[in-house]
């Protein structure tokens, strides 16, 4: 090899290396998107966009499952269930991203039909083109979760038989886990005597979140329940917080969510434990958070 060629090669090579991020779309996305503003639908869109857009999470032809919190027979103003506009926008986004089918499902605590209708989620999601499913006990199957504590549990098979899952919880207080954010939301995928999981709830949440591993977690903090959670009731239990957080690291999402209640992530036992076990980051200063107001 001639020296001239060698230098040329080096130059070209370094050029290629330099351009690599742009060429192969290996952009450095922020860990979390924190979007604030008045319109829940717009917040949802911007939050997903901040992480690189829905195309990063949903591929053409995917069957996508969206898991909101539809736990309670409460209206959106009472902030016990995920904001219907947020769910609706996520359905729209998934379909725009090329999803073949979007399913919306939760196993509520109150009577299913009442929660689905009164939360406004069934109608909103249907409008956007999702298939809204009541939990169906024929579809419960004991699934090996291979968690540290939970080895197996009856799970609605819809959660197993999809390509992608998006977790879209609402931020609320909870007397046992202090807060119910993303990781607690997975109890809604279970059947059986799931109330027994409260006997070691923190560990259950960690095992469940690791098992279900959503491709995206979107925390609805448009209205947050600061008192009397996880159901609330009075409008004075609700705080208009006008925020949505998006992230792939579900531990980080919950860690940021905790701060909305003036709780340090390190003061949340389940987050501390999840971090220790290497499920995600809870040191907010180590996270690249894109903050925007729209």
């Amino acid at each position, binding site marked *: 090899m001639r020296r001239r060629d060698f230098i040329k090669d080096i130059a070209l090579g370094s050029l290629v290396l330099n351009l690599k991020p742009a060429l192969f779309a290996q952009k450095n996305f922020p860990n979390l998107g924190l979007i604030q503003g008045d319109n829940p639908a717009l917040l949802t869109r911007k939050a997903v966009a901040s992480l690189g857009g829905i195309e990063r999470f949903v591929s053409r032809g995917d069957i996508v499952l969206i898991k909101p919190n539809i736990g309670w*027979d*409460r209206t959106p103003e009472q902030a016990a269930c995920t904001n219907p506009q947020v769910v609706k926008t996520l359905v729209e986004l998934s379909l725009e991203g090329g999803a073949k089918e979007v399913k919306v499902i939760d196993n509520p*605590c*109150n*009577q*299913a*039909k*009442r929660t689905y*209708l*009164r939360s406004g989620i069934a109608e909103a999601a249907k409008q956007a083109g999702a298939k809204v*499913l*009541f939990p*169906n006990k*024929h*579809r419960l199957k004991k699934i090996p979760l291979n968690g540290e504590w939970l080895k197996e549990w009856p799970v609605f098979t819809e959660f197993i038989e999809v390509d992608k899952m998006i977790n879209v919880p609402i931020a609320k207080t*909870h*007397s*046992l886990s202090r807060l119910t954010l993303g990781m607690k939301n997975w109890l809604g995928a279970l059947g059986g*005597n799931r*109330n*027994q999981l*409260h*006997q*070691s*709830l923190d560990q259950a949440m960690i095992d469940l979140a690791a098992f279900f591993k959503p491709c995206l977690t979107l925390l609805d903090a448009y209205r947050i329940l600061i*008192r*009397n959670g*996880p*159901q*609330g*009731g*009075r409008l004075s*239990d609700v705080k208009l917080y006008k925020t949505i957080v998006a992230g792939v690291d579900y531990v980080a999402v919950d860690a940021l969510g905790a701060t909305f209640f003036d709780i340090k992530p390190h003061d949340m036992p389940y987050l501390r434990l999840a971090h220790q076990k290497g499920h995600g980051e809870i040191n907010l200063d180590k996270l690249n958070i894109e903050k925007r107001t729209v």
Partner: protein
Amino acid sequence: MKLTSISLTLKKERSKKYRLIQSLRILSQTIFLFLFFYLLLATHFTGEDYIGSVEIFFHFDPLLALATLIASRAVYISFVFAALTILITFILGRVVCGWVCPLGSVHQFFSFIFKKGKLLKPKDNADNRVAWKYYLLVFILVGTLFSLDLVGIFDPLSLLYRSFSVAVLPALSHGFEATLGLLYQINVAFLADSLNQLFENLTLNSTFRQGFFIGLIFLGLLLLNISKERFWCRYLCPLGAFLGLISRWNILKLKIDEQKCIECQLCNIHCETQASPFPEEKWKSPECVYCFTCSSICPTSAITFPVGSTPESIESVSLTRRKLVFSSLLSVVAVPFFRLTPSQERSSPKLIRPPGALPEAKFLQKCIKCGECMKVCPTNALQPALTETGPEGIWTPVLVPRIGYCEYYCSLCSQVCPTGAIRALTVTEKIKVKIGLAWVNKNRCIPYFLGTPCIVCEEHCPTSPKAIKLIKTEVTRPDGTIKTPAAPVINTDLCIGCGICETKCPVVDKPAIFVTSIGEDRSERNQLLLPLLKEDPEIFE
């Protein structure tokens, strides 16, 4: 004409007009039966807080109207529709029995099936059992004078609705579930999924403690049609008896053309209700339900129902004065026996009534045990009572929290109650109504006796602020170690007794938290604390 000359050719002489009327009657029965079942299935949460008049059938029932009026000594305005039934019966006779009554249609349908299946062979052997229903009517109405309201047990609409809401529909839904399971097994999940979602939308309750017995009674009544056509309508129905009594002056009277009549007795054999069309003088107008079977089956079109004809005499069922007096006396004697129960003196802890239920004495005077509330309850919580309130209250609704709970923002049971035994409530009114009080059984509560965290009851408590509060409590565990878990305590002021804590308590057999009726708003006596001692609820904020 002689009897022997009946032949197939005579069939041509059957009255086309009355065969058409008979078809119209069957059409009318079908329509009303479907309407009844449609309203039955529509009695569920549809997404709105308020439900339409799905209980409207009951308001056309003059027996329910009269019995409720006498027993409760109060006018319930919705029963004005019953006046229409009375008017129709007054003018046209018991057409309501033959053309409208859904239970009558069900019985007629089964009679038809049994006839086709050769299980029932109609005979012309008139007997005086038709009098039974009049004695039963007297028994019921005399009881109402003493506010003993047993009408709901025997009223045909109550009986049919209860049988369907508590037994038939739940049984069907079990069958449906089994079919779904099968569909999943043979891998037609797509179909099964859609069916399941449809089914979920109907919110059919499938668990009823007395479903078996109520179903058995209904089945028994259906099977009685093997012995006699429309056995129930013929011998037992007190509403039929009531309508019979007011129908004797009606304008539709049977007439037999003696020139045409061949005395073949077909009319008597096939009369649905033993009204004995032949001979004309023996026809019992109050027994006739105007099914027009006789006039359409008559091989010579001899039987007609001309408007306004006035027969010389009206034959009635022979009721003996002795037996009428006897059934009245029986009723009078029965009243105290129905009240030998301890619930007269002391409220039963398990007698948790739906929100809006009137004070117990008033409630029993009004409740017709129809099962509307049990059908509409979204959580299957309302169950037919057996012993909770004595024999008088059998099949009245009680809330059984181990089966279901009172959904906080739901007041549907109070809206569908046809008699106002459960006062109609708005949702805002309803959430303030206390139907009982929750108690913690510390010997079974997981935090209290094992020191293990739980909080499920507190999490589900729907009031704000929550009536269940968690307090750090020092617990000596079975191994001697000491823990301080958060354990539930009840705020007696805030608890409304909805029972969701008991439903959801993870101690699945006998719950560690349970609701009893004490503290219920509707009772003055069944209270825990004097108002003076009540604590300030604000401390739980």
